């Protein structure tokens, strides 16, 4: 039965995430951008909330992943700061992929360190999705893995891998040679150093500087079969990849909402010709448009998250997740650019976060 209200429990989680986002992430966003990473103490604070351990309780987590709740959290974190939100989510996707697609011994090995009460916040994972030849859709994954005996040989590139350096597990999406679309997708854990694999840290990024990233090149890099998460082509890999798309979409909604709220507040207080600029339809309609499109995109994201939770036909939720991701990033890009416009000259200055948000949204592609 149709329902558009989160449960009470989800509302509580969302409120918690909202206060963390506005009290912790937002004020530290510029600092993180300059530093190029999240400050360890901030990560520690986040870890203490339990929001960053969506793993089964058996591994010490706060409960197995549930896409709707995580979508709500991700939007709030994105509202705080898109770069920091993706820093956290990009890291979590490593162990989450293991939780969704890995076998028990892989889960035992890689997940508990993230749940460690004292040191867990220092752990970083990574999830290599996009490539030099495309963006964040399953069809664009062209990195191949070819089996010869006990070893798989990886060929291809990966780009914009958040925490691509120094992460464990470092999970790489590839496809069995000769497959297309969602079929034959594999997730492989690669070690920090591997013959035939070169990693280069991304520098001079346009945006999302608070989420350090790297690019990979694989030339016949050999990994033992035991490094593959679960069986090749298992649905857990598709679920992990799709979850990343959904969470990226949710972060994008948060970025758009941040821009909307900021522009709204500014338009209320800024006067021109004796009236708040919000009272002029040229400004008011722009903001109304942002709000409308954001609501539309958010509903699409929620729909994808619900299908993911229900575990419907994976063809459905992959299509939905990719639509949601596309539409959410679209509104994040337009809302952040429009926020600068509402602020006028002030929007172009680093005194306000709008210019950073517009660069961050553009970097989501």
């Amino acid at each position, binding site marked *: *039965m*149709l*329902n*558009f*209200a*989160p*449960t009470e429990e*989800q509302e509580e989680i969302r409120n918690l995430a909202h206060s963390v986002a506005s009290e912790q992430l937002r004020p530290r966003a510029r600092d993180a951008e300059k530093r190029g990473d999240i400050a360890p103490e901030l990560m520690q604070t986040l870890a203490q909330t339990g929001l960053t351990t969506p793993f089964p309780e058996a591994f010490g987590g706060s409960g197995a992943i549930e896409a*709707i709740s995580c979508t709500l959290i991700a939007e709030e974190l994105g509202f705080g700061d898109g770069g920091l939100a993706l820093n956290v989510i990009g890291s979590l996707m490593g162990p989450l992929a293991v939780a969704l697609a890995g076998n028990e011994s892989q889960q035992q090995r890689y997940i508990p360190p993230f749940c460690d009460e004292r040191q867990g916040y220092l752990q970083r994972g990574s999830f290599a999705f996009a490539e030099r030849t495309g963006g964040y859709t399953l069809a664009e994954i062209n990195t191949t893995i070819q089996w010869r005996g006990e070893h798989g040989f990886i060929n291809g590139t990966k780009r914009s891998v958040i925490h691509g350096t120094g992460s464990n597990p470092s999970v790489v999406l590839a496809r069995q040679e000769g497959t297309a679309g969602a079929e034959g997708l594999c997730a492989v854990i690669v070690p920090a150093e591997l013959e035939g694999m070169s990693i280069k840290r991304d520098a001079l990024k346009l945006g999302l500087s608070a989420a350090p990233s790297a690019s990979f090149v694989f030339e016949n890099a050999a990994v033992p079969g035991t490094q593959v998460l679960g069986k090749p082509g298992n649905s857990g890999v598709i679920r992990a990849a799709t979850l990343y798309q959904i969470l990226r979409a949710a972060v994008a909604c948060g970025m758009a909402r941040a821009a909307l709220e900021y522009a*709204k507040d500014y*338009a*209320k207080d800024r006067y021109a010709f004796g009236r*708040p600029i*919000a*009272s002029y*339809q040229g400004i*008011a*309609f722009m*903001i*109304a*448009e942002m*709000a*409308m*499109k954001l*609501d*539309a*995109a958010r*509903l*699409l994201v*929620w*729909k994808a*998250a*619900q*299908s993911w939770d*229900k575990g419907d036909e994976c063809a459905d939720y992959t299509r939905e997740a990719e*639509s949601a991701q*596309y*539409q959410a990033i679209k509104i994040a890009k337009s809302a952040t650019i429009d926020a600068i416009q509402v602020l006028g000259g002030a929007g172009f200055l680093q005194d306000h976060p709008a210019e950073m948000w517009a660069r961050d949204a553009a970097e989501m592609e």
Partner: protein
Amino acid sequence: MIDFTLSKSQQAAREYAHQVALEEMRPISLQCDQTEEIPEAFFWNMQKRFWAGAAGQARQQAEREDEKQGNVLSVISQEEMAWGDAALSTAIPGPGLAAPPILSQGTPEQQMRFLGPYMDGKLHWGALALTEPGIGSDVAGMSTTAVLDGDEWVINGHKHYITNGARADLVVTFATIDKSLGREGIRPFVVPKGTPGFNVGRIEQKMGLRASQTAELIFENCRLPKENLLSGREQSKKAGFKAAMGTLDATRPMVGALAVGIARAAYEATCEWIQEELPEGYPAQKRREIEAELEEIGQELEMARFLVWRAAWMLDRRTPNSKEASMCKAYAGGLIMKATAAAVRITAPGENSERRLLIHKWFRDAKVFDIFEGTAQIQRLVIARRLFPEVDIP
């Protein structure tokens, strides 16, 4: 809990309406559009289908389910029927747009008196008269007047763009009891057909929705019993204006649903055209481009539908939904233009098949969805005023 799955009764309402659209509407759609007339048999079929049988059952089933969901069921059905033919769906017998103000502002006695007759198994319609030649969304400038003379209200004025105005058994007519009060002087009156002084003027010829009857109504010293003023629920001064605006909060999701239905019809027909009628030698690169364009329209259709569902769902829960109702109407109004224009452009190289004639009809039908129940600009004004409650946006 966030849930996008339809319940059994919601699914049943959708399937039933789709069947009606497919069997009763699509076959006569082009003919009715060309002749601007609807065969009598259609009215009787609709009367049977909607006031008895499976639809009645779906309604009862819905009532058994915990929450009230009349508006959600309604938007789900409206989308399907507009997919069939939006003009015909506006002509389905029943109180139509007269129902929301009677239900929200009428006393129980008035509800029985005015809505009871619709259950008698005969053909009846209702209409809502708000718009005048001089005013649309700016209802404060209304010039139709109502003056109390003894035990009777005397109505004078002109209304136009009134859907089903000439065939309605009763028209809920908004008039001002005191122009100096502005919008607070507005009251809703129920004017039965045949009341002396109440006459139908011209029937409009339109760009689209041609089978839908759009009438001009003229009130010249039209005398009504005192009891035909709808003022049961609220005695406050704002009651009349609230009734007018409350009607819009309820009808905007419906109009949004109709727009989604037409947009979907155009989108589906275009996809089918590519599959079945694409001319030989059509460039592969161009095909990829139009398919990408359609994919995006498909996503926007889904977003529009969710916005409509949400606004109707809020209404069922009696949550204030002005902003959300305007959002869904504005979004769907924009989308229907995009989808039908794309359909016309993409299928332009083809022969004039029945599919293309329907696409042309939908393009003509579409434009008014960006206009009635508040233009695209008015919707943005409503949204902005809700976003900025403390700012006066003139």
